[in-house]
């Protein structure tokens, strides 16, 4: 392979990116060296096993990936803003819609949600950390390495270009010969291992580490949604693992799982992909529902209406999510009976989802609503998501779907589900839990700019897509003729996307502004909230709770607060056991990344040599008998006294 095959050449935009990436890397390394921060980075962040720091790293990476995926989106919008535009050629457009989809789902939505889960869940159940802190760090680093591996594809070797769904036979070697789709198969495999580990970690954490007295029906709703999401992860991700393994074997070793020749079956890929892919949609949306529930209850100053029905609805959605995958390919040769069954299961999902919507509305009813930025996101979510949900029921009807299938109507639908459902939730969650992570609030005024720009931009961007979709525009079209009459709609849409981008810029500016100027005196409970994470300092100390709280009822903290029972007695303090930092997760994940990179280029000898790194990491890990350390009582007392007036 010559050098100009290795690097992507010939496109000025990509060339500019290559230079920009190179300069940024050099700049970052120089900056860290100049500030003498390497040791600090290594010991405080790279080797940390603290769930809060891991969560923050997830969130940071997720915001970066949001930027990358967002730029992809803007490029697509620019290309289709007018008929016969020439910004992107067909090949480049294919690559961009592929990376946009993969990044937004797997490297933006997932880490942002898992990041918030990491920060919040152990605090909400009154635990000191997750069940397996080191495994948690490994999950993060595997995700991060996978994200980087996927992202370098556009400058080294070429991006995947068969869509985020990568249907066979198109995604096979025969029709997509380059290394692009190898990046897809390998990097998602690495990320998937990390996600599976996260799922197991949270299931065990929530079963085993709840504070004394917190029985199942006294858990905060966000803990419930995280728990059920984790179960879906465990049940669904191994399917994707196998599908990606088959894809890798087909592409790298010439097998015939999904090929048309020699007895392969392309429909097998579709079934396996969506057996994972549909539950995946709920993996990202259920924790988001949990966040909205927390935010709405807090800012309506009421307990969550229908808590139990909320729990059953989430469990019902999780169960049904496994039984609807065929609705992604009604048009691909199923019998009428099969289509009818999956039509029914799909429409049934609207029932528990409707229960949730009404519960939120009833929580708001007669509440003393405070319109904080966080609450605004939750309020905007309800109508926007309902549009997504109702169009989903339209798509669920198999007979009608023959009209909508693979049109822009579908694209508009899932953006109306995923952006209000996930992105709004992440924003609501970030504004809400920011003080718990960093000890200061994000600015509310800039937050309102962020909110209004983003929400207006979002609706302007995606509403027109419903109409061009109904008018017959299929998805993934890189250009169209003027005679179609779509120019005006898509022009509006492109303007909307710029407004949305301005909203995102407002968020970034808000983070910058608040880091520099926001007040550091937020107290432990700045929102007058209901759940346990607000019972400890902001930012939460590394040991979370000096004394593990005891729980008598749902929203225990709220009632204790009312009765003034949140104090801490010195005599109750005992030394706290903490896990030690570890270098194995980051090194092991890096080894996975190197092996993955060699596999992408099918350099098998190098891959085998590099996999020695994985073996060494695993062996080192099994011989590691580090038992952690204890924080002495004096130190606890000192830290608690800093923020508590009520230490007796």
């Amino acid at each position, binding site marked *: 392979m010559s050098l100009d095959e290795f690097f992507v050449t010939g496109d000025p935009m990509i060339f500019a990116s290559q230079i920009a990436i190179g300069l940024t890397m050099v700049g970052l390394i120089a900056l860290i060296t100049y500030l003498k921060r390497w040791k600090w980075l290594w010991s405080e962040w790279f080797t940390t096993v603290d769930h809060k720091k891991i969560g923050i790293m997830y969130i940071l990476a997720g915001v970066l990936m949001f930027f990358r995926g967002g730029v992809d989106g803007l490029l697509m919008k620019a290309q289709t803003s007018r008929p016969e535009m020439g910004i992107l050629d067909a090949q480049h457009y294919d690559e961009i819609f592929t990376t946009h989809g993969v990044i937004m789902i797997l490297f933006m939505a997932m880490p942002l949600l898992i990041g918030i889960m990491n920060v919040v869940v152990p605090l909400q159940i009154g635990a000191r950390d997750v*069940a*397996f802190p080191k495994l948690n760090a490994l999950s993060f680093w595997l995700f991060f390495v996978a994200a980087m591996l996927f992202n370098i594809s556009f400058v080294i070797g070429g991006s995947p270009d068969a869509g985020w769904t990568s249907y066979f036979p198109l995604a096979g070697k025969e029709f997509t010969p380059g290394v692009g789709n190898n990046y897809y198969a390998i990097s998602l495999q690495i990320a998937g291992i990390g996600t*599976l580990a996260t*799922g*197991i*970690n949270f*299931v*065990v954490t929530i*079963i*085993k*580490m709840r504070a004394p007295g917190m029985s199942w029906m006294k858990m905060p709703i966000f803990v419930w949604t995280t728990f059920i999401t984790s179960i879906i992860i*465990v*049940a*669904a*991700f*191994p*399917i994707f*693992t*196998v*599908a990606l*393994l*088959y894809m890798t*074997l*087909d592409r790298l*070793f*010439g*097998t*015939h*799982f999904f090929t048309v*020749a*020699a*007895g*392969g*079956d392309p429909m*097998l890929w579709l079934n*396996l992909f969506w*057996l994972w892919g549909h539950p995946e949609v709920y993996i990202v949306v259920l924790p988001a529902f949990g966040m909205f529930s927390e935010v709405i209850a807090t800012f309506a100053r009421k307990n969550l209406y229908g808590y139990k029905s909320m729990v059953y609805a989430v469990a019902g959605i999780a169960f049904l999510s496994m039984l609807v995958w065929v609705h992604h390919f009604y048009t691909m040769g199923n019998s009428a009976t099969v289509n009818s069954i999956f039509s029914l299961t799909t429409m049934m999902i609207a029932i528990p989802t409707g229960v949730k919507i009404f519960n939120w509305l009833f929580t708001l009813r007669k509440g003393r609503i405070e319109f904080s930025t966080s609450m605004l996101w939750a309020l905007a979510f309800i109508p926007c998501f309902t549009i997504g949900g109702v169009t989903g029921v339209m798509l669920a009807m198999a007979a009608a779907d023959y009209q909508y299938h693979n049109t822009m109507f579908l694209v508009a639908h899932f953006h109306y589900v995923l952006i209000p459902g996930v992105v709004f939730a992440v924003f609501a969650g970030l504004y809400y839990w920011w003080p718990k992570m960093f000890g200061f609030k994000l600015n509310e005024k800039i937050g309102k700019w962020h909110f209004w720009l983003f929400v207006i931009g979002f609706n302007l961007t995606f509403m027109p897509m419903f109409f061009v979709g109904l008018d017959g525009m299929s998805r993934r079209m890189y250009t169209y003729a003027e005679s179609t009459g779509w120019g005006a709609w898509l022009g509006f849409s492109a303007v909307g996307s710029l407004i949305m981008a301005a909203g995102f810029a407002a968020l970034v500016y808000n983070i910058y502004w608040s880091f520099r100027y926001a007040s550091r005196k937020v107290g432990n409970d700045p929102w007058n909230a209901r759940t346990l994470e607000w019972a400890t300092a902001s930012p939460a100390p590394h040991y979370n709770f000096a004394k593990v709280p005891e729980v008598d009822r749902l929203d225990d903290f709220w009632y204790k607060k009312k009765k003034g029972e949140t104090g801490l007695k010195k005599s109750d303090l005992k030394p706290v056991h903490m896990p030690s930092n570890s270098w194995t997760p980051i090194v092991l994940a890096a080894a996975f990344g190197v092996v993955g990179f060699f596999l992408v280029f099918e350099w098998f000898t190098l891959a085998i040599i590099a996999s020695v790194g994985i073996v060494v990491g695993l*062996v080192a890990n*099994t*011989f590691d*008998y580090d038992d952690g350390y204890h924080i002495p009582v004096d130190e606890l007392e000192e830290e608690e006294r800093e923020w508590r007036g009520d230490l007796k």
Partner: protein
Amino acid sequence: MTSHTTTPLEYKTQQSQMNILGFWIFLGAEIVLFSTLFASYFVLEHNIAGGPAGGDIFVLKDVLIETFLLLTSSFTSGLAIHAMRNHDKKGLLIWMIATLLLGAGFLYMEINEFLHFIHEGATIQTSGFTAALFTLLGTHGAHVTFGIVWISLLLVQLVRRGITEKTSSKLFIASLYWHFLDVVWIFIFTFVYLKGMVM
């Protein structure tokens, strides 16, 4: 921290309990993984594309020996855990080594079987059927290989440290893993070999 006298050593600490529960959940994920491999095998089983079918290449005698080796190894790993519960370090070590030897024997037979398949003109690239067959058997075999290396490393720790709260919970988890591989093999034996030879 529960520490009743009746609690087995491997369940003594909260962390051990969580490790064991976590591993059970991991085994749940493994069940999904193998179910997917089986389901795909059933989809592709008859897509032989002019190459050999299962009945043409399976050798009943070898399969029976493999089955015998692996089932016995599951029994010996059970004996090993029994010895561990009796705080019998030597017994634990001996039965675990027996388990590993039986596992290695199984692997030897399986590798020979693969060579036989290839000799008969059934490589992983021949057809949809062979791709699914090799991947299902290969994933199981890779698990056995991983188990052998893993348990060997645990035995080193056992020799060095004796039966402690930590080593016992690690070996207990490894035995769960080993039994699981046995269960998977029973399904392979039934739904790949017997079915392939009868139908």
